[in-house]
């Protein structure tokens, strides 16, 4: 059986590594501090965390609160505070780096039937498989730190509210007295 590869016979990961970049899932790591999402047209500079760690955290964030109509960058924005805090907080940085390391180790075992290797959380293709790993660590400080920060940091983004149909502040528009507080038609 033959296969074709869009990178022209060279494994994408090897190709990127040869050019000073590494791929991790849909993301691309440049140097030691930049995470790029080429297909989505955005990237982020990391101050303390490894870009690979942030890429995994973004996937984990989506698996915790999976909204398929919301792009990765909103999850990344919600996680940025963790990178900022890790600059001066070694314990926080260790919690996140070690947490992602543990997540990858568990994913590797799942993929390789008990052996560990270089396979990672991002290599688990199905959400259900990743979620199964998350359930195993649900009570950990790492998971609860991630979930607890996301439930505020993710859903409190004003830019996201229209995607949920929420209009936010209303007093500056005179409330809803002339703007549909009682406009329901189906009951």
């Amino acid at each position, binding site marked *: 059986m033959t296969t074709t590869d869009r990178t022209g016979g060279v494994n994408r990961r090897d190709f990127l590594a040869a050019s000073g970049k590494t791929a991790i899932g849909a993301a691309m790591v440049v140097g030691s501090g930049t995470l790029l999402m080429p297909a989505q047209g955005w990237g982020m500079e990391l101050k303390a965390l490894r870009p690979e760690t942030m890429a995994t955290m973004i996937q984990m964030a989506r698996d915790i609160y999976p909204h398929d109509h919301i792009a990765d960058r909103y999850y990344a924005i919600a996680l940025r505070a963790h990178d900022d805090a890790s600059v001066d907080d070694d314990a926080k940085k260790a919690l996140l780096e070690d947490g992602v390391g543990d997540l990858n180790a568990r994913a590797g075992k799942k993929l390789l039937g008990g052996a560990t290797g270089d396979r990672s959380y991002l290599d688990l293709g199905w959400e259900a498989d990743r979620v199964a790993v998350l359930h195993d660590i649900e009570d950990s400080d790492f998971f609860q730190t991630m979930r607890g920060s996301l439930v505020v940091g993710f859903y409190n983004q004003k830019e996201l509210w229209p995607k949920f149909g929420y209009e936010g502040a209303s007093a500056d528009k005179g409330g*809803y007295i002339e703007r549909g507080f*009682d406009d329901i038609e189906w009951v």
Partner: protein
Amino acid sequence: MTAPYDLNDDSVVVIIGSGAGGGTLGNELAQKGIDTVILEAGGRHEAHDFINDEWDSFGQLAWLDKRTTSGDWRVAKDFSGLPAWIVKAVGGSTTHWAGASLRFQPGEWKALTTYGAVEGANLLDWPITAEDMAPYYAKAEDKMGVTNTHGIPPLPGNNNFKVMEAGARKLGYKRVHTGNMAINSQDRDGRTHCQQSGFCFQGCKFAAKWSTLYTEIPKGEETGKLEVRANAHVLQIRHDKDGKVTGVLYADADGKQHVQKARIVAVAGNSIESPRLLLNSASSLFPDGMANSSGQVGKNYMRHMTASVYASFDKPVNMYRGTTMAGIIQDESVHDPSRGFVGGYEMETLSLGVPFMAAFLNPGAWGRQFAAAMDTYDHMAGMWIVGEDMPQESNAITLSDEKDQYGLPAPNVHFSDHANDIAMRDHAWKQGMAVYDAVGATQTYPTPPYPSTHNLGTNRMSAEAKDGVVNKWGQTHDIANLFVSDGSQFTTGGAENPTLTIVSLAIRQADYIAEQMGQKAI
């Protein structure tokens, strides 16, 4: 025309707290010409300062000082440092409240008689009756502009109400309306009518909802007999060798401590801080805390049986538009033991914005089921359920080992549901979901209680000094010139949102204090 009083002026009535109880009492006394100082722990934010943003407003208004929790209630696990969602600001929790203003039902004033003894519950009849309270309820409703009373027209129903109403009618419920709300349905008392902004909980920027902040307090200040001192956090109540109260120790905005002398002190810091203050005022004369000869200070903490039901539909609702709680089903508020519990509950419309819905729909939940519910946000309707919970002596405010910013023991809030509370909640969830199923809900969500907004009972009123902390006037059994003026007086909680009753009790208490002062009894 505020009246600044001297720290050494020992002729003043000092009220601790400026919410429904303290703010009302302060104005009522000032109107009678009595010199009054309200010490408010929080700052003064006027209506135009309020923020139409859930988390930012929470940061502006919420009481976030150190508190700890214990007991089997889920709040202790999900919000361990935040047992209550109440306010630290001038106006107290009347800035945040939803406006629902219901009278206790006659039988609820005598819960022990009406329900009989309930195992594990510390039930007691109030030492006052529905007849005693009727004229004060009438005064409070008029003061607050409560809709559907005194000829005040109802509020219009919003989208969320229309869904709940349609479901309720299909289930056969009869007592369904837009509530008795202390929110102007027409311009009244110098304030505009409801603009349906949907941010009742964040402080009404239009001042259409009654709050002591822009009603009682400025009216009292206009008399020249009321001073409201903001950022004055009371740490301790002082007394003389005879056990008579002489003043209070408080910290100002810079943490500097002062003693304000007083002829009378009235405690109105809500049902966590009020008993905590009495306990933190322990002395050699009162080793178990002030006014605590009964041992009941801090005990019998009630928070109402609460829950919510949200439901998703195949068509939009936009529940967040308009008055948050202008909608009620009252059919289940009766005492009908055939349902498997004593007491009753109200079903009231409720909505949260996206940020708070994420935090409170099912705290701690994650994954696709949770996200799918959030994805239907604008297709959701919601209700809050509020019913009578059983007073239990073991549910209590006690002094924690942890300290607050002043080095004083923080309050620990211990709560576990009584079996009656659980049976009522299960019934209410089932009925609430049935309401929405009746109009075609595609999903329903039985949401657990939020951090407590109705904190009650921790300095309870009793006929006998051995059974409670205050008498039928809110005067402590032990100390004649020490009063309690907030919801901590409640002997039992009733099914109703408590603010109207707190305000009515404060009006009544003001009459009594004035009379006693006139007689030089205090």
